[in-house]
């Protein structure tokens, strides 16, 4: 009984203290806002925003609501985070493996890349890629076509747009291919377990993912054409490209800087993971006759991943949060659109900042949960 009380009292005091501190600040904020004639409320979310946004994944203009503007910003944040995470992972794995390469040049180059990019503040890198790289790019009228259809200019990257006919059939063909691959993999595993025979799943998979969509073109009536960007003159020296898809330079600069920066940290995680697996493991695997590929796939990687995943999760979280630096270079992310323009136009500082904080929290926790789930899946199954 005595022991229990001793355990509970400090915890109780802590909880009360935290509640009191929060209560004090909330109360203070309320009083201050009342004194200064500021209303509190989320009603503004349904009002017309009356400002436009440069780049949006959903249909949006100033006649939509502030809530819609919030969604635009959120989706743009997610877009840059997802692309950034994918590129950073690929680059990070390559560089991490390269750092372990016995080849002197590759090894030193990877080391130089890591040390260079991770030791310069991210905001500076963003400014560098935006302003330095921007100035180096040609004006639309001077741009040389890349492969005849891509145009990289100071106003953005213009790529051809796909124009589909019967897109749904093409989509189903891909779904069918994916299902077929999963079935074959399960079957192949069974065959190997029962008969010891190996089916070349990898090549069959590649074949399927090409052949089925190809069939949809040949007999399914799917047609694909391209709309190539065309130069249009606005004034004597002012041009843009019309048609096709344009990626704003802000998006490109931001993705590039976020990926290059975060990839250095991921590379170090990967290196640590691979080096963390004992040398004996590799030698033992080789001694029972596994091919080098199988050694990597069946012995090294499963163990290395356990070391790699948790710190890499941190890097994914960092990248997502760092994407809020977008505001500096006019990429319309959540911070610029919602915690920037919308906050200014409505003056609802507390409401908007709290929504923005809560949104980042939700995003980060989602990534955490996903990565923890994956981590659990690859963890040692204790029996």
């Amino acid at each position: 009984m005595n022991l229990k009380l001793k355990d509970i009292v400090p915890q109780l005091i802590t909880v009360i203290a935290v509640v009191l501190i929060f209560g004090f600040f909330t109360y203070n904020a309320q009083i201050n806002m009342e004194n200064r004639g500021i209303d509190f409320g989320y009603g503004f979310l349904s009002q017309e925003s009356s400002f436009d946004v440069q780049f949006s994944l959903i249909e949006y203009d100033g006649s939509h609501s502030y809530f819609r503007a919030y969604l635009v910003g959120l989706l743009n944040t997610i877009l840059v985070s997802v692309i950034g995470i994918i590129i950073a992972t690929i680059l990070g794995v390559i560089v991490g493996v390269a750092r372990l390469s016995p080849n002197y040049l590759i090894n030193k180059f990877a080391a130089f890349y890591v040390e260079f990019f991770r030791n310069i503040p991210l905001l500076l890198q963003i400014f560098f890629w935006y302003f330095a790289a921007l100035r180096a790019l040609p004006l639309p009228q001077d741009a040389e076509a890349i492969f005849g259809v891509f145009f990289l200019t100071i106003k953005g990257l213009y790529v051809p747009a796909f124009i589909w006919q019967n897109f749904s059939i093409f989509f189903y063909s891909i779904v069918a291919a994916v299902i077929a691959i999963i079935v074959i993999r399960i079957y192949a595993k069974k065959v190997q377990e029962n008969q010891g025979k190996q089916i070349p799943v990898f090549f069959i998979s590649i074949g399927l993912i090409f052949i089925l969509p190809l069939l949809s073109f040949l007999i399914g009536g799917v047609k694909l054409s391209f709309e190539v960007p065309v130069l249009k003159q606005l004034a004597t020296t002012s041009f843009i490209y019309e048609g096709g898809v344009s990626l704003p330079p802000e998006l490109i600069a931001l993705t590039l800087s976020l990926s290059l920066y975060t990839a250095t940290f991921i590379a170090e995680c990967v290196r640590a993971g691979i080096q963390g697996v004992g040398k004996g493991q590799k030698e033992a695997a080789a001694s029972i006759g596994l091919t080098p590929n199988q050694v990597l796939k069946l012995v090294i990687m499963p163990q290395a991943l356990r070391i790699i995943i948790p710190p890499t999760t941190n890097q994914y979280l960092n990248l997502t949060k760092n994407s809020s630096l977008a505001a500096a270079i006019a990429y319309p992310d959540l911070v610029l659109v919602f915690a920037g323009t919308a906050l200014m136009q409505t003056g609802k500082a507390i409401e908007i900042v709290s929504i923005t904080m809560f949104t980042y929290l939700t995003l980060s926790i989602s990534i955490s949960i996903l990565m923890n789930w994956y981590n659990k899946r690859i963890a040692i199954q204790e029996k």
Partner: protein
Amino acid sequence: MFKYLKQLTSLVAMVAVLFTFTTESMAAKKSKTLKNTQKKGFVRCGVSQGLPGFSNADAAGNWTGVDVDVCRAVAAAVLGDANKVKFTPLSAKERFTALTSGEIDILSRNTTWTLSRDADIGLTFVGVNFYDGQGFMVRKSSGITSTGQFKDGISACTNIGTTTELNMRDFFNSKGIKYEPVAFEKADEVVAAYDAGRCDTYTTDKSGLAAQRTKMKNPDEHIVLPETISKEPLGPVVRQGDSVWEDIVRWSLNTMIEAEEYGITSANADMMKTSDNPAIKRLVGAEGELGAAFGLDNDWSLRIIKQVGNYGESYKRNIADTGILPDRGPNQLWTKGGILYVPPAR
């Protein structure tokens, strides 16, 4: 020795208390901001992060500009020294929060007076120190000489968190032109991006365009188009709920404009005390008790004129002589064809 020291201290303390009681007038008691300002010994003033002519710091950290002069006028009136101002550079996004949260007491940062700002967010506009309007800047080489030549697909660089963003949308929508807004958080980045060729046009208040043009790599390559697409009355802002402070800031600005109207300058202010015109005598503190209403002495307005100068002097020093906008346009006295017209100081 120590005995005397103790007595001396208590004597000093008593005198100080007495002094506080006698000098603290009714107005100062009513105005928390005035009281705090006098206690701190400086006016806390929010300005821009660098807009030549309005609020701009030189290499030594000295602020100049017509917006800066409003804060200096208040400091001269309230504290007796126009240099007793602490300037806080703010972005367009931060400015209102800084004021409503009490970090600054005057926001003098080329801020447009609009209904929603005045009514909604705990702010009170005290007057107009610059009549402006939104315009467009383009490269001379583009051959564009009027907004009528804008075409679909034009990209426009601007700042976030300003009336500019809203006006721009209204303008392009009414003309039926599709445009690409590229909005930055800070003015320096807007200028850098436009200068690099990211945008076809740069839009903000015309005074801002004229001022930022001086920062470009090659100012002569750019022109400001003649059209004005909005009304932008710029002026100082204070927090809602302190009417004495509000009056002090309003009448510090009005004094500068009225002084110009009566021809009182920093050079001749002292001589004007013997003027025959009672309006002039009131402005230089030789007649009437105008300061008492704010809890200030009677020389408050004289100090403003002597230390900061009248509006015309401030305009000439900051905007005309620096080549930003030599022509005063609407910012001329009503007696000379402009629209500067302030209520009489009496």
